[in-house]
């Protein structure tokens, strides 16, 4: 893998780390060209969803750099960032992707040489890890699928709320004027991340055709009783329904109108997809994989006319169609 040149996206906070990167330039400290920098106002403004999306889009590594603790221009933004990155690490691990690919560093405005070192070091580390398995023309669909699950987990209320309340509850005070020990919060976050990951995974499985608890357990490797528990919660939340009962076991189907969480194509895009599919159906000398690829690429060039300005209810992002690749690829 010596000729592997990793693609790294850097999110740098405007006040410390971006200034540190500038100082590396002023001091002419050389580092590899592998990093493309996105300037953000604060390391806390990087949504975990964006980090997962960045991996889905094929980044081999991500650098998030903010002010040293205590130096934050917005007081505590960097501490929020730390907690958010931690949760992304937990989820990446579940996806089968090395958490080391996403790295959080503190770089001050006077640490030009440190910025260069961090980039050097990260490029080396990513080189050793090898390319992101979901990048390129033949992505690892299992991992990709799981990354979508992770993204859906982060889009959900439960984990998000806990991550963002963690600082308040752990360091300041909860509503009873108490603080909860760090270990307990860590444990809770681990449990919730795991539960929600499994639940989103189940919703994915039951998206296209109805499926039994037994089958879900087989596909996920989870114990049946746990799957059953999850289905109960999901049915209660109105995300899953019993489609029909077959052979005495109920078959579950994801309720499709909950468009906020599940990656399904909005209606207009379904139409586009069908028209593209029909137009290439009779192409000679093109195998099925290539056809799927063509459909995906063409869909990517489309722009959502509903939500160019703002998010519609149908998807998280105005470039929502891009979040739906798994539906097309899979």
């Amino acid at each position, binding site marked *: 893998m010596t000729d592997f040149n990793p693609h790294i996206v850097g999110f740098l906070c405007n006040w410390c780390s971006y200034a540190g*990167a500038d100082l590396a330039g002023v001091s002419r400290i050389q580092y590899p060209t592998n990093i493309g920098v996105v300037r953000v106002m604060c390391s806390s403004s990087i949504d975990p969803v*964006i980090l997962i999306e960045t991996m889905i889009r094929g980044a081999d590594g991500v650098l998030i750099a903010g002010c040293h603790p205590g130096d934050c221009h917005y007081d505590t933004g960097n501490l929020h960032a730390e907690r958010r990155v931690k949760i992304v690490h937990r989820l990446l691990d579940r996806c089968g992707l090395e958490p080391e690919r996403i790295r959080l560093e503190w770089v*001050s405005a006077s640490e030009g040489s440190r910025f260069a070192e961090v980039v050097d070091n990260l490029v080396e580390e990513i080189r050793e890890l090898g390319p992101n398995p979901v990048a390129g023309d033949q992505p690892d669909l299992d991992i990709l699928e799981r990354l979508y699950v992770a993204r859906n987990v982060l889009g959900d209320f439960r984990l998000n709320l806990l991550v*963002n309340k963690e600082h308040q509850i752990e360091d300041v005070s909860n509503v009873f004027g108490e603080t909860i020990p760090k270990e307990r919060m860590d444990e809770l976050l681990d449990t919730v991340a795991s539960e929600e990951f499994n639940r989103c995974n189940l919703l994915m499985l039951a998206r296209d055709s109805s499926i039994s608890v037994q089958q879900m357990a087989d596909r996920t490797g989870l114990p049946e009783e746990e799957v059953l528990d999850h289905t109960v919660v999901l049915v209660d939340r109105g995300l899953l329904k019993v489609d029909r009962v077959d052979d005495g076991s109920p078959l579950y189907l994801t309720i499709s109108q909950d468009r906020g969480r599940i990656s399904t194509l909005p209606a207009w895009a379904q139409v586009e997809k069908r028209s593209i599919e029909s137009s290439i159906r009779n192409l000679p000398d093109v195998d099925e994989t290539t056809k799927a690829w063509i459909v995906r690429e063409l869909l990517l060039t489309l722009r959502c006319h509903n939500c160019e300005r*703002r998010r519609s209810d149908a998807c998280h992002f105005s470039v929502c169609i891009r979040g739906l690749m798994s539906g097309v690829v899979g």
Partner: protein
Amino acid sequence: MSDEEGKIGAVMVVGGGIAGMQAALDLADSGYLVYVVDSSPSIGGAMAQLDKTFPTHDCAMCILSPKLVATGRHQNVKLMMASDIHAIEGKPGNFTVFVKRKARYVDETKCTGCGLCTLRCPIEVRDEYNKGLKLRKAIYLKYPQAVPPVHTIDRDHCIGCGVCETQCEAGAIDFSGEEELVKVDVGSVILAPGFSEFDPRLKTEYGYGVFKNVLSSVELERMLSATGPYRGMVLRPSDGKRPKRMAFIQCVGSRDVQVGNPYCSSVCCMFAVKEALIAREHTPGLETHIFFMDMRAFGKEFDEYYARAEEEHGIVFTRNTRVARVSQNPETNNLYLWYAEHGKMKREEFDIVVLSIGFDSPKDVEKLTEKLGIKLNKHDFCQTDMFTPLDTSEPGIYVCGAFSSPKDIPDSVAQASGAACRAMSEIAGARGAMVTVKEYPPEIDVSGQEPKVGVFVCHCGINIGGVLDVPSLAEYAKTLPNVVHAEDNLYTCSQDTQQRISETIMEKGLNRVVVASCTPRTHTTIFQNTLMEAGLNPHLFEMANIRDQCSWVHMNVPKRATKKARTLIRMAVAKASLLEQLKPAEVEVVKSALVIGGGLSGMTAAVELARAGFDAHLVEKDSELGGLLRRIHFGCSGEDVQGFLERLVKQVEDDDRIRVYTSAELKEVSGSVGDFAAVIDSDGEEIETHQGVIIVATGGEEYEPTEYLYGKDPRVMTQLEFEEKLVTEGEIDAKCIVMVHCVGSRTTERPYCSRVCCTESVKNALRVKEMNPGIAVYSLFRDMRTYGFREEFYREAAEKGVVFIRFLEENEPVVSIDDQGKLEVRVLDDILQEELLINPDYVVLAAATLPARGNEELARMLKVPLNSHGFFLEAHMKLRPVDFATDGIFLCGLAHLPKFFEENVSQACGAVSRALSILSQDTLEGEATIALVDESMCRGCGVCVDTCEFGAPSLIMLENGRQVSHIDGALCKGCGSCSVSCCNKAITMLNFRTDQVLSMVESCFSEAKTPPAKREATVVEEVTET
């Protein structure tokens, strides 16, 4: 230009250090034109040399550089670098100042700061900024982040070879430059020339300049800095090895009559603790020792910092000693420190020694003062008066920062704001007269238009063009989606190119502009201005940083660097296509201030507000004004405090602009900066009022001791009670008096230092000696914290026979009553190591200063924080000492921290100055790039409220009864944290919308992921055919 009285709405600030910059920014924000004069080629002063700041270990450059940029870019600030005051004429409100500008030999309007000239300059000179530990060239920039980023030829060393001129693509070098005399008309002058470092060579016994491993504390600071000579490593100058044992010697050039500096330099104790901690962080296994007489940790959180340094970080403190001399082991270049401890001489070996050098008055101070006619005190610092600490002896000329007395950064900043307040109230009528508001053409509405992006790629001379293939980048940009125009320029930031950009926008109907050049941190505002001149919203602009983060850091791989630049441009264009026009929220400002607390600080604030032409509503909880000041009768030099108080109260009560509410308290506050709605309960009557800003000056109170028989025996009293007794009785019937320091301060329960009580005790001891020199006075103290010029009173007291006895925390004195009914004090003298027995007639306790009762409730009401001791917590301990993180609310006086009379006055004026930057505007423009809530998606969970440090989001009830979050645009700082925290993605961070960020991420790879061209072509053809 001037108002009806002929006053001029401009101020000259002499000195561009942190104090000078703060004063300049406050004045410029309040509608005055400011000239900043500094003899150095760039602003920044001493703070620019620091690595970290105590006690928070903030990176100095991180917090300073936004101020540098703000000062350098402010349209109402004119920088006059490498300049000195030559002469001054006129009267307050109308001065003419002649400024002598040295030739820089570089045209400030043309130099882009690229630094090519320095690369080829053959002359190497010891770099003053790095204390000679590094070399610079004869044409140079003082430090990498210097503002203005203009190079200077050092005529003393330049040999005139002319190479720099051949290298400068901007044509900025001008050898014909000559010193010029510039005439400037101003209404007021502020002096902030700072200090100069004491020359440690004068302390020959420490061997500085002779022994290589003896450093000054400023040299160590440069070593610790990542931009210093060894990139943050501490190395012994003699052999380049990492030291193992480091000693700090305190008071080098301070508290030293022999070298002519009898005063205390105030900052060196904390400075040494900080350096000792950071040096240990940077050097594994380093032992650090600090040798000192008294640890002067009198500031906010300082004592806690000192304690942590000792207990948690293992810094070794050797107290109560002045190192006698340093000698060197000639073989190892190690150093021996000779010092006395408990009366015995000791010798200890170290491999590096740091001298904590003190403050001298600024260089050439006599010349400056001679020209201005102001008086100096006997230490050659600026003479000020206790009651008017910001005024020099010349009316219309004000002072701040270390020039008025040695002080740390937050005190300098607060004082700088204070001086700005004094300077502007003098010329209040001429506010806005000298500043021009730039007129722009009406904004073109581009919403709904297809994006039409123009890309301008800069060569920056050869800074970019020498590495990257710039013309190919412009060609490449033309192929990107939405790009309708792309070109390359020699200097995109030059005046003529900006003109071109403006014309191109109008000609080609561009509605988004991308500039690929240097860093957006310094250049965004320049180009945004260009957009506005062409009628575009300034937020339709994006930069690609292809210099600082590309050509400069990939100089040896031009092809790859060009490829990366293509990526950066692609990312910028992608984001640009999604940019939208933004309008900042506007709030109409109520031209009135609410001042909470009617003591010295509150009354000073009210009077200054009125002087500046604004209404003040003063709320005092007691039935009369004066607060704690009513109990203070005289100053250290015998100043008549009660007489002053009487005049101040009269001034407050007589002023039509000031409305006083006594026996009153705040009931309720809502709203935000520009328009707070406050309900005041005054004697049971509820008054509702609207205020633009709020100043918190709730003061403090004296601790009522439970120690030392206080309250049980009438002969035991506090210093304030004793002062009352001295004044009312006029004489004192006693043979012996014992004073005990730190009563209720620096304890486990109350770990902070009350700052004023050492001096207060010395003051009263002196008064006793003055009344009757025969009375024996014993002062039992832990550390004598008579910082600054107060050290003189301490010395005077010692000379007059006051006996100072040091005790340690663990050996507190014991006060009892013996069998004859006499008071008896037992104390273990730490120096003699002997227990002393004293039978005094009175025991006087230096009781702690406590925060005002009711601070908690007020803090809750205003949604501002308190520290763990109950004092209010400012927005930033270093650079925003009188601001709260919440805009429009300020603090001053004892509400912030116990402090002296003159410090309270300075801070009160400082709070007013900060308030004036708001009150002087009719409407307040908030940030344009803020977070917005989509109410239809919000479920009102309130997570965003917890995330925000600035109180911008709050939960409101909609008419339909649904609870949703609402973000106050005036309070939002635009960090974007809340938008991430939102569980329903109902919050959008403008200008950093998720889709905008993702579009950049996407285009970061899109080239790499483009499939083979043939395949793509086939697909497109096939699809269009069917």
